[in-house]
């Protein structure tokens, strides 16, 4: 090997290393630095743990954390619903391909667009409540968007509505790769629908379900900005009822011009995502092995 060919691989990865260092490396170093400084404009004096002390003593921060954690309640609902629909689809009802295209549509539509639509649908005087009253379910005709007790649950419904589409497609793909003889055998043994689902299908889907759960947990903790931004009028409203960590960082940076505070929260969010990387990689490997084992 001559000199130039030993260098070649590095030339090929150089643009990649530069791009990732700039967009990920630089900010990840800087958020730690900023989080210990009182940044005004572009820099500022070192203040030790001042920023952390401030956010940890602030109700709004803890409220945001609580809201992100509450959103985790959506995950079991998403899993159950996606599983039900995927299994029913798997039983090869006529037209399942068309069903699949339609049921995946929520995942294609942009979140801000649907947020604007849902906001109107769930208005107090909107069509959802009109239908509920017409059905005689007046007790359910809540102020979905305008009440601070309800708004976060409305956002959660919206998240379940969209993220379930991904679950359905993932689960269905896994089901379609299963060995059909097992299911056929269970049917011939006289197993009921529930028994077949619970003892034959679900155990073989463990990997993909775990994968979906971990991905959804990451979403709930760190990727719900688009869901809450329009629904909560850009402020996490009404009041602070739909405030989440991403919006907290956004407001601290843009509205209050406090990069130090925003960085401290970014550091905490980064540490949470670091913790979640371990299970993510483990479940992704297991889901892949499951796929390979069955094919």
């Amino acid at each position: 090997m001559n000199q130039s060919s030993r260098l070649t691989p590095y030339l090929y990865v150089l643009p990649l290393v530069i791009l990732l260092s700039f967009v990920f490396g630089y900010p990840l170093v800087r958020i730690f630095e900023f989080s210990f400084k009182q940044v005004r404009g572009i820099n500022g004096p070192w203040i030790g743990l001042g920023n952390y002390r401030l956010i940890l003593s602030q109700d709004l921060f803890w409220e945001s954390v609580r809201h992100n954690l509450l959103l985790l309640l959506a995950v079991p609902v998403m899993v159950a619903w996606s599983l039900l629909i995927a299994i029913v689809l798997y039983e090869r009802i006529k037209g399942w391909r068309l069903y699949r295209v339609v049921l995946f549509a929520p995942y294609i539509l942009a979140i801000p667009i649907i947020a604007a639509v849902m906001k109107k649908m769930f208005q107090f005087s909107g069509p959802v409540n009109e239908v509920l009253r017409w059905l005689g379910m007046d007790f359910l005709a809540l102020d979905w968007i305008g009440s601070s007790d309800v708004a976060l649950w409305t956002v959660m419904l919206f998240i379940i509505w969209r993220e379930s589409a991904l679950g359905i497609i993932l689960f269905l793909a896994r089901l379609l790769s299963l060995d059909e003889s097992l299911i056929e055998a269970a049917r011939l043994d006289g197993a009921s629908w529930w028994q077949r689902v619970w003892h034959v299908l679900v155990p073989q889907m463990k990997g993909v379900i775990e994968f979906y759960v971990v991905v959804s947990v990451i979403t709930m903790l760190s990727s719900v900005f688009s869901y809450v931004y329009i629904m909560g009028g850009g402020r996490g409203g009404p009041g602070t009822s739909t405030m989440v960590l991403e919006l907290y960082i956004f407001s601290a940076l843009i509205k209050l011009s406090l990069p130090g505070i925003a960085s401290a929260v970014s550091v905490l969010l980064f540490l949470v995502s670091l913790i979640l990387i371990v299970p993510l990689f483990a479940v992704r490997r297991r889901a892949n092995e499951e796929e390979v084992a069955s094919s």
Partner: protein
Amino acid sequence: MKPDNALKHAILLFAVFLALVPSVFMVLTALKSEEEYTFNKVGLPHTVVFDHFENVLFGSPFFAWMANSVILAAGAVAVSTVVSCLGAYAIARMEFKGRGLLFSVSTALMAIPPVVMIVPLFVLYTQLHLISTYEGAIIIYAGLITPFSVYLLTTFFRTLPRELFEAARIDGAGDLYILLRIVIPLSLPALLTLVVVNALYVWNDLIIAIIFLQDDSKRTLMAGISVFQGRYDNQIPLTMAGMVIASAPMIILYIAFQRHFIQGLMTGAVK
């Protein structure tokens, strides 16, 4: 067997209803007049009006927003694809120190939420006057979508048969020739998946768009509609007409390329 199937159909129809109801509401409402919507919120429009579409298209810069979104998506996807193809080729097909580490780090970055990177980049961009520039936003988007691209392309390049490379080498082909003339043509399905997922990510993104493209003339479609829906808050049919226009491009592409969308977004589920 019969009643069982009826129940399954009922469940599926309910799921379909839920999946479609926001879109149906959006389209039906866009066709109603403001007066009609006040007393007819749920039903079909009694008289169909197209005025709202006209008002939206002439009253708000939807096409300019869309053009900005197209520029950003195309720019970011182009940059990221070139960078990722080169990098993934080296990771998959060349021996060098740090190869495993680079791949692990790049893959791990897929799980870092974009919001974490925003603060320092915003501060830096303010200093460098890169706020509200296409180049600035394209670099950020390209960076954010690259870990997934590298992951997908590396796994794909590794599945290509080794003999292919050996044969080309014996014929005296260089690395760049092999990459451009052999690897890329064989990877078109993977590349298409990648383009779909990445373009959709940039097109649908809101947080980077509102922070890094604050100037009116640089606003993307998603940032634009968040302003638009706030401005016409109480003109619901008009707002819905805007949303129909905003969602039209993606719905058309989805119907045309269903399989690539479904395949691609399943692969990209980590994002």
